[in-house]
């Protein structure tokens, strides 16, 4: 078998999008409070889920190349633009703490009924337009200090892929244990029940019987 199939059609997009959206929702990433809990130290799910996914995907790509299903260099690897990549990542970090989502999770937030996610999306469209307006001024900074095309950590450190993947698995494990200890100290992580009960509590008028709404843990 030979991968990638390079199928970028409608069904490919829909199918992979459904998997992506389902996984993010199952992780609880349709909830802005659970997501932002990462940086408030109350919920380390963003770190845990993301690092697990990175290790699983990286190991799978390595395995596919080992058994000859995929050739090295046959799939897209983003190129580093030191300032652009780092500053862009930082702006997204700030915007995430203000807005509650990143772009992908905002789609899951909307799919989970969150109106704030829809407003956030309007903001993203506006922010993209602002970038286009100032692109000529910002281009020298954005495209400066481009690293080698498709530069990877194994190339940077001069080790094989599986060494980097093993190191990432160790970092993920240590971060996981640390995160679990910290989030418990801060009363987390958020449960689906708590997030939704507190939403219901906010929406309901004063003095009404809250029925099944549970007190905060």
């Amino acid at each position: 078998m030979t991968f990638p199939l390079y199928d970028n059609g409608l069904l490919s997009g829909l199918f992979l999008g459904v998997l992506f959206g389902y996984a993010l929702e199952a992780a609880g990433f349709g909830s802005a409070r659970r997501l932002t809990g990462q940086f408030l130290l109350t919920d380390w799910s963003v770190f845990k889920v993301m690092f697990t996914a990175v290790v699983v995907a990286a190991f799978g790509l390595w395995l596919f190349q080992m058994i000859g299903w995929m050739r090295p260099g046959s799939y897209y690897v983003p190129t580093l633009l030191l300032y652009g990549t780092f500053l862009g990542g930082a702006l997204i970090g700030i915007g995430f703490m203000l807005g509650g989502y990143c772009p992908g999770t905002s789609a899951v937030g909307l799919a989970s009924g969150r109106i704030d996610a829809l407003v956030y999306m309007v903001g993203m469209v506006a922010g993209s337009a602002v970038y286009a307006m100032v692109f000529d001024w910002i281009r020298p900074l954005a495209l400066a200090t481009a690293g080698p095309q498709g530069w990877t950590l194994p190339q940077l450190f001069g080790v094989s892929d599986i060494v980097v993947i093993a190191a990432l698995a160790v970092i993920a494990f240590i971060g996981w244990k640390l995160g679990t200890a910290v989030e418990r100290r801060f009363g987390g992580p958020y449960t689906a029940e708590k997030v939704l009960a507190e939403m219901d509590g906010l929406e309901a008028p004063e003095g009404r019987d809250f029925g099944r709404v549970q007190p905060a843990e």
Partner: protein
Amino acid sequence: MNAQPRPFWHPLAAGTLLGVALLLTFAITGHGLGASGFFARTAAWLANAIAPEWTASNSYFGPFVRSGNPLASWISWEIVGVLIGGFLGATAAGRFRLGIERGPSISAGTRLLSALVGGVLVGFGARLAQGCTSGVGLSGAGSLAVAGFVFLAGFFAAGFATAYFTRRLWQ
């Protein structure tokens, strides 16, 4: 009243499913998952509808509209899929809730304003980084790209640095 929601998945289970989805995406399409590209394309599409001449001559949006409808792209279908997958998961588990999610100490108006401002920063930042947490962070790190880890370093550093000043929005 709403039925009791089912718990979120254990992070190991959700992360594994997400990793498999990402691996399948590489195997089927030759690239990773993304999200912000759709919103940039939506912006180019809207700009083209409002001011076609400006859009065509703009150095960033121009290339998007030159080859036809900027929304006619794999990533648009992927985002439609994300909406469907998220909706199916949320409704099946009793986690769909129409409303504004916010901390108990701010008003709905403050929450929507912060969502809008946050969205603008993220929309801009994602263009600067040529992708977002999905496209550069998750997919980049999954392909072991240096760019993916530099992105995540910026994202996590800024997130922790901003947390103290934004905590009232959420707690």
